[in-house]
Protein backbone atom coordinates (compact mmCIF):
# COMPACT_ATOMS: atom_id res chain seq x y z
CA UNK A 1 0.00 0.00 0.00
CA UNK A 2 1.30 3.50 -0.77
CA UNK A 3 1.32 5.93 2.13
CA UNK A 4 0.06 9.33 0.91
CA UNK A 5 2.54 12.24 0.90
CA UNK A 6 2.50 14.72 3.75
CA UNK A 7 0.90 17.23 1.37
CA UNK A 8 -2.23 15.08 1.03
CA UNK A 9 -5.11 16.99 2.69
CA UNK A 10 -6.39 13.71 4.11
CA UNK A 11 -3.81 13.95 6.91
CA UNK A 12 -5.13 17.31 8.15
CA UNK A 13 -8.69 16.04 7.83
CA UNK A 14 -7.67 13.13 10.05
CA UNK A 15 -6.00 15.12 12.82
CA UNK A 16 -8.68 17.82 12.76
CA UNK A 17 -11.26 15.22 13.75
CA UNK A 18 -13.61 16.18 10.91
CA UNK A 19 -14.36 12.51 10.34
CA UNK A 20 -14.78 9.57 12.68
CA UNK A 21 -13.13 6.60 11.01
CA UNK A 22 -13.73 3.20 12.55
CA UNK A 23 -10.25 2.11 13.60
CA UNK A 24 -9.03 -1.38 14.48
CA UNK A 25 -5.70 -1.00 16.27
CA UNK A 26 -5.40 0.35 19.80
CA UNK A 27 -2.20 2.11 18.75
CA UNK A 28 -3.93 4.01 15.94
CA UNK A 29 -6.81 4.98 18.22
CA UNK A 30 -4.65 6.45 20.99
CA UNK A 31 -2.23 8.14 18.60
CA UNK A 32 -4.90 9.73 16.41
CA UNK A 33 -7.00 10.58 19.46
CA UNK A 34 -4.06 12.47 20.97
CA UNK A 35 -3.18 14.25 17.72
CA UNK A 36 -6.80 15.35 17.32
CA UNK A 37 -6.71 16.96 20.77
CA UNK A 38 -3.36 18.64 20.01
CA UNK A 39 -4.91 20.09 16.83
CA UNK A 40 -7.90 21.40 18.80
CA UNK A 41 -5.57 23.12 21.25
CA UNK A 42 -3.06 24.43 18.70
CA UNK A 43 -4.05 24.41 15.01
CA UNK A 44 -0.98 26.47 13.98
CA UNK A 45 0.73 25.42 10.72
CA UNK A 46 3.86 24.38 12.65
CA UNK A 47 2.00 22.09 15.04
CA UNK A 48 -0.20 20.74 12.24
CA UNK A 49 2.85 19.81 10.18
CA UNK A 50 4.46 18.15 13.20
CA UNK A 51 1.34 16.08 13.86
CA UNK A 52 0.96 15.08 10.21
CA UNK A 53 4.59 13.96 10.17
CA UNK A 54 4.06 11.91 13.34
CA UNK A 55 0.91 10.21 12.02
CA UNK A 56 2.46 9.45 8.63
CA UNK A 57 5.61 8.05 10.31
CA UNK A 58 3.38 5.72 12.33
CA UNK A 59 1.87 4.24 9.19
CA UNK A 60 5.24 4.00 7.45
CA UNK A 61 6.66 2.04 10.37
CA UNK A 62 3.60 -0.23 10.33
CA UNK A 63 3.33 -0.73 6.58
CA UNK A 64 3.55 -4.50 7.03
CA UNK A 65 0.79 -4.63 9.67
CA UNK A 66 -2.54 -5.43 7.96
CA UNK A 67 -4.71 -3.81 10.65
CA UNK A 68 -2.65 -0.60 10.46
CA UNK A 69 -3.18 -0.51 6.72
CA UNK A 70 -6.91 -1.11 7.28
CA UNK A 71 -6.85 1.91 9.59
CA UNK A 72 -5.08 3.97 6.92
CA UNK A 73 -7.80 2.97 4.47
CA UNK A 74 -10.46 3.89 7.03
CA UNK A 75 -8.90 7.35 7.29
CA UNK A 76 -8.32 7.98 3.58
CA UNK A 77 -11.13 5.90 2.12
CA UNK A 78 -10.83 3.83 -1.02
CA UNK A 79 -8.62 6.53 -2.55
CA UNK A 80 -5.53 5.13 -0.88
CA UNK A 81 -3.57 3.18 -3.50
CA UNK A 82 -2.36 -0.41 -3.17
Amino acid at each position, binding site marked *: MIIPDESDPGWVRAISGQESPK*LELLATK*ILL*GRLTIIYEMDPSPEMTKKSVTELRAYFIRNID*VPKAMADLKAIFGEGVRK
Partner: protein
Amino acid sequence: MKPVMYSKETVAAMIADGKNLLLAGDEKSLQGLPPGSWIAGTIPYFMGEQGGVFTQDQIYVTELPPYVLKTEVRVYNETDIHQIYNDTPQHGFSIIIIPAICPTHFTFALNAPRFPGFATRPLIGWIAGTAMNEEIAVPKVFNGVRGAALENGAVVMHVELPESKLVEINIVNIFEQGEGDTITFPNDGFNATEVLINGQAKNFADYLRENAVDTRLPLVADLYGAMINTSFHSVNFAKSQVNFYAPVFAGFRYKLAKPVGDYVSHFQDEVPEGVGDKLVFACNCILNYLYAGLEGRKTAQFTGPVTFGEIAYQLLNQTMAYLTIEDA
Protein backbone atom coordinates in the same frame (compact mmCIF):
# COMPACT_ATOMS: atom_id res chain seq x y z
CA MET B 1 -5.23 -24.03 31.47
CA LYS B 2 -1.44 -24.30 31.57
CA PRO B 3 0.36 -23.68 34.86
CA VAL B 4 1.67 -20.15 35.41
CA MET B 5 2.57 -20.09 39.12
CA TYR B 6 5.83 -21.79 40.03
CA SER B 7 8.14 -22.26 43.01
CA LYS B 8 11.43 -20.37 43.15
CA GLU B 9 13.34 -23.63 42.61
CA THR B 10 11.42 -24.45 39.46
CA VAL B 11 11.91 -20.94 38.09
CA ALA B 12 15.66 -21.19 38.77
CA ALA B 13 15.71 -24.40 36.73
CA MET B 14 13.83 -22.71 33.87
CA ILE B 15 16.38 -19.89 33.88
CA ALA B 16 19.22 -22.42 33.85
CA ASP B 17 17.56 -24.04 30.81
CA GLY B 18 18.07 -20.75 28.94
CA LYS B 19 14.40 -19.85 28.61
CA ASN B 20 13.35 -16.21 28.01
CA LEU B 21 11.20 -15.37 31.02
CA LEU B 22 9.03 -12.53 32.28
CA LEU B 23 8.59 -12.92 36.03
CA ALA B 24 6.41 -11.39 38.71
CA GLY B 25 6.60 -12.14 42.40
CA ASP B 26 7.21 -10.95 45.89
CA GLU B 27 10.70 -9.50 46.39
CA LYS B 28 11.81 -12.39 48.61
CA SER B 29 10.91 -14.94 45.94
CA LEU B 30 12.78 -13.03 43.20
CA GLN B 31 15.94 -12.26 45.18
CA GLY B 32 18.72 -14.76 44.52
CA LEU B 33 17.43 -16.15 41.24
CA PRO B 34 20.36 -17.05 38.96
CA PRO B 35 21.40 -14.73 36.13
CA GLY B 36 19.78 -15.40 32.77
CA SER B 37 17.42 -14.08 30.14
CA TRP B 38 14.72 -12.73 32.42
CA ILE B 39 13.22 -9.57 33.80
CA ALA B 40 10.92 -9.25 36.78
CA GLY B 41 8.91 -6.92 38.93
CA THR B 42 7.64 -7.17 42.48
CA ILE B 43 3.98 -7.89 43.17
CA PRO B 44 2.24 -10.51 45.31
CA TYR B 45 -1.16 -10.43 43.54
CA PHE B 46 -1.89 -12.49 40.46
CA MET B 47 -4.54 -13.81 38.16
CA GLY B 48 -3.41 -17.42 38.44
CA GLU B 49 -4.67 -20.51 36.66
CA GLN B 50 -7.13 -20.99 39.55
CA GLY B 51 -8.23 -17.34 39.62
CA GLY B 52 -7.15 -14.28 41.58
CA VAL B 53 -4.57 -15.11 44.23
CA PHE B 54 -2.29 -13.42 46.77
CA THR B 55 0.98 -15.28 47.36
CA GLN B 56 4.44 -14.26 48.52
CA ASP B 57 5.93 -17.67 47.79
CA GLN B 58 5.18 -18.45 44.16
CA ILE B 59 6.35 -16.66 41.02
CA TYR B 60 4.19 -15.89 38.00
CA VAL B 61 6.04 -17.00 34.86
CA THR B 62 5.55 -15.96 31.24
CA GLU B 63 7.81 -18.03 29.02
CA LEU B 64 8.34 -16.39 25.65
CA PRO B 65 7.58 -18.62 22.65
CA PRO B 66 10.38 -20.74 21.18
CA TYR B 67 10.26 -18.94 17.82
CA VAL B 68 11.65 -15.73 19.39
CA LEU B 69 14.78 -14.83 17.40
CA LYS B 70 16.54 -12.61 19.88
CA THR B 71 16.01 -10.84 23.19
CA GLU B 72 17.88 -7.93 24.69
CA VAL B 73 17.45 -6.74 28.26
CA ARG B 74 18.06 -3.03 28.80
CA VAL B 75 17.61 -0.74 31.75
CA TYR B 76 16.39 2.82 31.29
CA ASN B 77 15.90 5.63 33.75
CA GLU B 78 14.16 8.99 33.67
CA THR B 79 16.92 10.49 31.49
CA ASP B 80 16.74 8.01 28.61
CA ILE B 81 13.30 6.35 28.83
CA HIS B 82 12.24 8.59 25.91
CA GLN B 83 14.16 6.23 23.58
CA ILE B 84 11.93 3.28 24.38
CA TYR B 85 9.69 3.26 21.29
CA ASN B 86 12.52 3.77 18.82
CA ASP B 87 14.55 0.99 20.47
CA THR B 88 11.79 -1.59 19.97
CA PRO B 89 12.65 -4.02 17.15
CA GLN B 90 10.95 -3.45 13.79
CA HIS B 91 9.66 -7.03 13.93
CA GLY B 92 8.81 -7.72 17.54
CA PHE B 93 7.76 -5.97 20.70
CA SER B 94 9.06 -4.76 24.05
CA ILE B 95 7.98 -5.56 27.59
CA ILE B 96 8.59 -2.91 30.25
CA ILE B 97 8.37 -3.06 34.05
CA ILE B 98 8.77 0.06 36.22
CA PRO B 99 8.61 0.29 40.04
CA ALA B 100 5.72 2.38 41.33
CA ILE B 101 6.42 5.86 42.66
CA CYS B 102 9.93 6.38 41.28
CA PRO B 103 11.19 9.14 38.96
CA THR B 104 11.13 6.84 35.91
CA HIS B 105 7.49 5.95 36.63
CA PHE B 106 6.46 9.60 36.77
CA THR B 107 8.53 10.57 33.73
CA PHE B 108 7.10 7.75 31.62
CA ALA B 109 3.53 8.30 32.78
CA LEU B 110 3.52 12.01 32.07
CA ASN B 111 5.58 12.12 28.90
CA ALA B 112 5.32 8.83 27.01
CA PRO B 113 2.78 10.14 24.47
CA ARG B 114 5.31 12.81 23.50
CA PHE B 115 8.30 10.47 23.21
CA PRO B 116 9.72 9.95 19.69
CA GLY B 117 7.99 7.11 17.88
CA PHE B 118 5.15 6.87 20.43
CA ALA B 119 2.88 3.92 19.64
CA THR B 120 4.77 3.06 16.46
CA ARG B 121 5.93 -0.28 17.86
CA PRO B 122 4.23 -2.58 20.39
CA LEU B 123 5.07 -1.74 24.01
CA ILE B 124 3.35 -3.55 26.86
CA GLY B 125 4.16 -3.84 30.53
CA TRP B 126 3.29 -2.96 34.07
CA ILE B 127 4.05 -1.00 37.21
CA ALA B 128 5.53 -3.08 40.01
CA GLY B 129 4.11 -2.82 43.53
CA THR B 130 3.99 -4.42 46.94
CA ALA B 131 1.42 -5.96 49.24
CA MET B 132 -1.14 -3.30 50.11
CA ASN B 133 -0.53 -3.70 53.86
CA GLU B 134 3.28 -3.48 53.64
CA GLU B 135 4.09 0.14 54.17
CA ILE B 136 7.86 -0.38 54.46
CA ALA B 137 8.41 -2.49 51.33
CA VAL B 138 9.53 -0.65 48.20
CA PRO B 139 8.50 -1.82 44.70
CA LYS B 140 11.44 -3.13 42.65
CA VAL B 141 12.29 -4.41 39.20
CA PHE B 142 14.99 -6.94 38.35
CA ASN B 143 17.43 -7.10 35.46
CA GLY B 144 17.89 -10.86 35.29
CA VAL B 145 20.97 -10.67 33.08
CA ARG B 146 22.86 -9.01 35.92
CA GLY B 147 20.64 -10.23 38.76
CA ALA B 148 20.30 -6.65 39.93
CA ALA B 149 17.28 -5.13 41.68
CA LEU B 150 16.33 -1.50 41.07
CA GLU B 151 14.06 0.89 42.94
CA ASN B 152 14.20 3.44 40.12
CA GLY B 153 14.38 2.58 36.45
CA ALA B 154 12.59 0.63 33.80
CA VAL B 155 13.72 -2.88 32.97
CA VAL B 156 12.86 -3.73 29.39
CA MET B 157 13.10 -6.87 27.31
CA HIS B 158 13.22 -6.08 23.60
CA VAL B 159 11.98 -9.15 21.73
CA GLU B 160 12.70 -9.79 18.06
CA LEU B 161 10.36 -12.10 16.12
CA PRO B 162 10.38 -13.61 12.64
CA GLU B 163 8.75 -11.41 9.99
CA SER B 164 6.06 -14.09 9.68
CA LYS B 165 4.64 -13.16 13.11
CA LEU B 166 2.15 -10.38 13.83
CA VAL B 167 2.03 -8.76 17.26
CA GLU B 168 -0.98 -6.89 18.61
CA ILE B 169 -1.51 -5.10 21.90
CA ASN B 170 -5.03 -4.53 23.10
CA ILE B 171 -7.01 -3.87 26.24
CA VAL B 172 -10.12 -5.13 27.96
CA ASN B 173 -11.79 -2.28 29.79
CA ILE B 174 -15.21 -2.91 31.27
CA PHE B 175 -15.68 0.80 31.93
CA GLU B 176 -17.22 3.23 29.49
CA GLN B 177 -18.10 6.89 29.68
CA GLY B 178 -21.22 7.73 31.65
CA GLU B 179 -23.86 10.17 30.48
CA GLY B 180 -22.79 12.91 32.85
CA ASP B 181 -20.67 16.04 32.73
CA THR B 182 -17.65 16.53 30.49
CA ILE B 183 -14.54 17.21 32.53
CA THR B 184 -11.41 18.81 31.07
CA PHE B 185 -8.14 19.65 32.78
CA PRO B 186 -5.97 22.70 32.14
CA ASN B 187 -2.71 20.83 32.65
CA ASP B 188 -1.24 17.33 32.45
CA GLY B 189 -0.62 15.85 35.87
CA PHE B 190 -1.15 13.33 38.64
CA ASN B 191 -3.31 15.82 40.53
CA ALA B 192 -5.80 18.57 39.82
CA THR B 193 -7.50 21.45 41.58
CA GLU B 194 -9.39 23.65 39.13
CA VAL B 195 -11.07 21.95 36.15
CA LEU B 196 -13.70 22.76 33.56
CA ILE B 197 -17.05 21.05 34.05
CA ASN B 198 -18.96 21.40 30.77
CA GLY B 199 -16.75 24.42 30.11
CA GLN B 200 -17.34 26.09 33.51
CA ALA B 201 -14.48 26.50 35.98
CA LYS B 202 -14.90 24.52 39.19
CA ASN B 203 -12.78 23.07 41.96
CA PHE B 204 -12.67 19.36 41.25
CA ALA B 205 -12.63 18.24 44.91
CA ASP B 206 -15.73 20.33 45.55
CA TYR B 207 -17.38 18.86 42.45
CA LEU B 208 -16.72 15.31 43.62
CA ARG B 209 -18.09 16.05 47.10
CA GLU B 210 -21.17 17.95 45.92
CA ASN B 211 -22.07 15.17 43.50
CA ALA B 212 -21.21 12.31 45.90
CA VAL B 213 -19.07 10.75 43.19
CA ASP B 214 -18.03 7.12 43.70
CA THR B 215 -14.27 7.47 43.17
CA ARG B 216 -13.86 3.73 42.72
CA LEU B 217 -15.10 4.41 39.20
CA PRO B 218 -12.44 5.93 36.93
CA LEU B 219 -12.45 8.95 34.68
CA VAL B 220 -12.77 7.74 31.09
CA ALA B 221 -11.56 9.39 27.87
CA ASP B 222 -12.86 8.05 24.56
CA LEU B 223 -10.14 7.98 21.90
CA TYR B 224 -11.79 6.68 18.73
CA GLY B 225 -13.52 3.96 20.74
CA ALA B 226 -10.56 3.11 22.97
CA MET B 227 -11.69 3.82 26.53
CA ILE B 228 -8.70 5.16 28.46
CA ASN B 229 -9.13 5.20 32.24
CA THR B 230 -7.56 7.38 34.90
CA SER B 231 -8.25 6.20 38.44
CA PHE B 232 -8.77 8.29 41.53
CA HIS B 233 -6.08 7.87 44.17
CA SER B 234 -7.37 10.24 46.84
CA VAL B 235 -9.13 13.50 47.47
CA ASN B 236 -7.41 16.00 49.78
CA PHE B 237 -10.23 18.30 50.82
CA ALA B 238 -7.90 20.40 52.99
CA LYS B 239 -5.86 21.27 49.90
CA SER B 240 -8.88 21.09 47.56
CA GLN B 241 -6.80 18.71 45.46
CA VAL B 242 -7.67 15.46 43.68
CA ASN B 243 -4.89 12.90 43.15
CA PHE B 244 -4.78 10.21 40.45
CA TYR B 245 -2.95 6.92 39.85
CA ALA B 246 -2.07 8.01 36.30
CA PRO B 247 -1.90 11.46 34.78
CA VAL B 248 -4.83 13.29 33.33
CA PHE B 249 -4.01 15.10 30.10
CA ALA B 250 -4.94 18.66 29.17
CA GLY B 251 -7.65 18.95 26.55
CA PHE B 252 -8.91 15.37 26.81
CA ARG B 253 -12.66 15.14 27.39
CA TYR B 254 -13.21 12.90 30.39
CA LYS B 255 -16.42 11.60 31.86
CA LEU B 256 -17.02 9.60 35.00
CA ALA B 257 -17.46 5.93 34.19
CA LYS B 258 -20.87 4.31 34.15
CA PRO B 259 -21.39 2.09 37.19
CA VAL B 260 -20.94 -1.60 36.43
CA GLY B 261 -22.51 -4.63 38.03
CA ASP B 262 -20.49 -7.82 38.37
CA TYR B 263 -16.96 -7.29 37.03
CA VAL B 264 -16.38 -10.87 35.91
CA SER B 265 -19.55 -11.18 33.86
CA HIS B 266 -18.94 -7.77 32.22
CA PHE B 267 -15.34 -8.79 31.59
CA GLN B 268 -16.38 -12.01 29.80
CA ASP B 269 -18.63 -9.94 27.53
CA GLU B 270 -15.77 -7.63 26.56
CA VAL B 271 -13.20 -10.29 25.62
CA PRO B 272 -12.88 -10.61 21.85
CA GLU B 273 -13.36 -14.10 20.44
CA GLY B 274 -10.31 -16.21 19.65
CA VAL B 275 -7.84 -14.32 21.82
CA GLY B 276 -6.92 -17.32 23.95
CA ASP B 277 -4.96 -19.22 21.32
CA LYS B 278 -2.80 -16.20 20.50
CA LEU B 279 -2.34 -14.84 24.01
CA VAL B 280 1.27 -14.40 25.21
CA PHE B 281 1.05 -11.94 28.09
CA ALA B 282 -1.60 -10.10 30.10
CA CYS B 283 -1.78 -8.00 33.24
CA ASN B 284 -4.72 -6.59 35.15
CA CYS B 285 -5.08 -3.75 37.61
CA ILE B 286 -4.90 -4.03 41.39
CA LEU B 287 -7.96 -1.75 41.61
CA ASN B 288 -10.01 -4.21 39.55
CA TYR B 289 -8.71 -6.99 41.84
CA LEU B 290 -9.69 -5.10 44.99
CA TYR B 291 -12.88 -3.28 43.97
CA ALA B 292 -14.33 -6.22 42.05
CA GLY B 293 -13.25 -8.86 44.57
CA LEU B 294 -11.33 -10.96 42.07
CA GLU B 295 -9.53 -13.11 44.65
CA GLY B 296 -10.49 -16.69 43.85
CA ARG B 297 -12.35 -15.69 40.68
CA LYS B 298 -11.24 -16.31 37.09
CA THR B 299 -11.16 -13.69 34.33
CA ALA B 300 -11.81 -15.87 31.29
CA GLN B 301 -8.58 -17.39 29.95
CA PHE B 302 -6.44 -14.49 31.11
CA THR B 303 -3.74 -14.91 33.74
CA GLY B 304 -0.96 -12.53 34.72
CA PRO B 305 0.35 -10.19 37.37
CA VAL B 306 -2.08 -7.84 39.09
CA THR B 307 -0.37 -4.49 38.86
CA PHE B 308 -0.10 -0.92 40.11
CA GLY B 309 -0.59 0.33 36.55
CA GLU B 310 -0.82 -1.26 33.12
CA ILE B 311 1.17 -0.16 30.11
CA ALA B 312 -0.29 -0.55 26.64
CA TYR B 313 1.84 2.01 24.80
CA GLN B 314 1.11 4.41 27.68
CA LEU B 315 0.19 4.09 31.33
CA LEU B 316 -3.40 3.00 31.98
CA ASN B 317 -5.51 2.31 35.06
CA GLN B 318 -8.26 -0.19 35.92
CA THR B 319 -7.66 -1.97 32.63
CA MET B 320 -6.42 -5.35 31.49
CA ALA B 321 -3.68 -5.08 28.85
CA TYR B 322 -2.67 -8.07 26.73
CA LEU B 323 -0.36 -9.05 23.91
CA THR B 324 -1.11 -11.58 21.19
CA ILE B 325 1.08 -13.09 18.50
CA GLU B 326 -0.23 -14.82 15.40
CA ASP B 327 1.01 -15.88 12.00
CA ALA B 328 0.94 -13.16 9.37
